[in-house]
């Protein structure tokens, strides 16, 4: 079985969010970057579990500049076999999906994993777009995946409950919490990652369909009024008369 895991470089969850260039660009000053948590903890780890139990080969792919190679190496340290970096930078989901699809078309994967969304642009789009571009069925926000031969059984959340579906391989899916448990790379994996193949490919010619015109920060928060725990009636009065939410 051949698996492709799409990973993305995102700011650490505790990063201070600020913008430069007249609020048109994210300021990377002092920001630590990580693998997008949904990609790493759920998509990649599940792929590695399939590698361990069913002998799958796990490839990784990122669309980004040379500054993404640190996160790629971490993903290889976790257990990925080989990585692709498409040498392009874009915030447009369709552009990114097109680059991934171009590589995937040549490699013929059985399963393509993405995370539910990236924690920076929250698009939740790349997985579905890759599936459409490759003509694959797509299961979104899956919390469980089992593979038996050429049939995949997935569980995903729907409004008001959960749904179990079956799909024949090949397929694409986006993974969310519940798919797997996060792992920490061990020293052996870190050492091995240095020599695993990381192929840099040039992007195919695709036009972006959207562009970010500007960013905004939310207004500064107003002061907080703390109510002692033994004054519930006062809390209720304030919620009713001041906040007017009850």
């Amino acid at each position: 079985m051949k698996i492709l895991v799409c990973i993305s470089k995102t700011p650490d969850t505790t990063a201070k969010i600020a913008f430069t260039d007249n609020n048109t660009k994210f300021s990377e000053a002092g920001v630590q970057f990580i693998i997008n948590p949904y990609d790493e903890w759920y998509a990649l780890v599940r792929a590695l579990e399939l590698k361990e139990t069913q002998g799958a080969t796990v490839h990784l792919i990122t669309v980004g500049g040379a500054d993404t190679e640190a996160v790629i190496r971490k993903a290889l340290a976790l257990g990925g076999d080989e990585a692709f970096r498409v040498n392009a930078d874009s915030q447009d989901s369709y552009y990114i999906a097109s680059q991934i699809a171009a590589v995937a078309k040549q490699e013929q994967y059985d399963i393509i994993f993405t995370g539910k969304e990236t924690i920076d642009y929250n698009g939740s789009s790349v997985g579905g777009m890759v599936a459409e571009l490759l003509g694959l069925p797509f299961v979104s926000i899956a919390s469980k995946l089992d593979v038996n031969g050429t049939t995949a059984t997935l569980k995903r959340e729907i409004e008001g409950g959960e749904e179990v579906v079956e799909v024949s391989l090949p397929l694409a899916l986006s993974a969310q919490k519940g798919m797997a448990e996060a792992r920490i790379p061990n020293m052996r994996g870190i050492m091995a990652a240095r020599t695993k193949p990381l192929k840099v490919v040039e992007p195919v010619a695709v036009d972006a369909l959207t562009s970010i015109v500007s960013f905004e920060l939310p207004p500064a928060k107003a002061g907080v009024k703390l109510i002692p725990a033994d004054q519930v009636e006062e809390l209720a009065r304030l919620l009713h008369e001041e906040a007017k939410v009850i």
Partner: protein
Amino acid sequence: MSVIIFADQFQEKVKKSALEAVQYGSRIAQQLGVPAIAVAVGEVDGAELSALGQYGASKVLHVADARLNEPESGAVTKVMAEAVAKENGSVIVFSHNFAGRSIAPQLSARLKAGFVAGAIGLPDTAAGFVVKKNVFSGKAFANVSITTDKKIVSVMPNTFSVSAGSGTANVEAFSAGLTDADYRIKTVKVETVSGEVPLTEAEIVVSGGRGLKGPENWGSWKISPMYWVRQRPAAVPWRMPTGARIMSTLARPVSPYAPTCTSLSVSPGLSSTWQA
């Protein structure tokens, strides 16, 4: 030209999030001076579909195929693409719910239509088509321009209030030419929670604060029917049983931490049970 809106359903009723999408889409249609047309799939009550006129839809295209009761994203992508072609759709609207997150990106790639996921405002059409959305997990906003002829927007649920006006929509049977080959994802089992209110359908969401810890302490709050959210760092929602009456005073928390309440709005019938 027209605005095409996906109005998904749950147990034969149009979802609350879908009503928001219909109203949002109809407002875009008003901005552009074009009709708003809803698309529904699966078995849905006819009166429910006609009632979409109260939210601004002039027509509803209905694919009454029971296999789409649990929407197969590939099949629905085809339905939406056919609807766009039939009605010359220029803007396509989804709710950013589970169905929308699955279908909208696929449709975007099929139509090569720019897509903004999770819109929190109506598009600014003064100079192009610019939509505001949350980024960095809600720590900032981005204004995103869609530059293609066809545009897709998914609306963040619970961002816009829904108000029913008057009017009925004309319901039209629609065949998108679906074949067995379009149904590649087979639903094996659906487990729905009964007797409780799904988070996305809740009228009121109450956050109890970290001090209440878990369900064992919820008994001091007897509120019905609403969805209870325990405020943990991961903000994972919990459900609580419905049906209990409200106590004469608001609950006393069992911990030093005072509870917080968020996103409260009165649901029909609830005000009569409050006893301040």
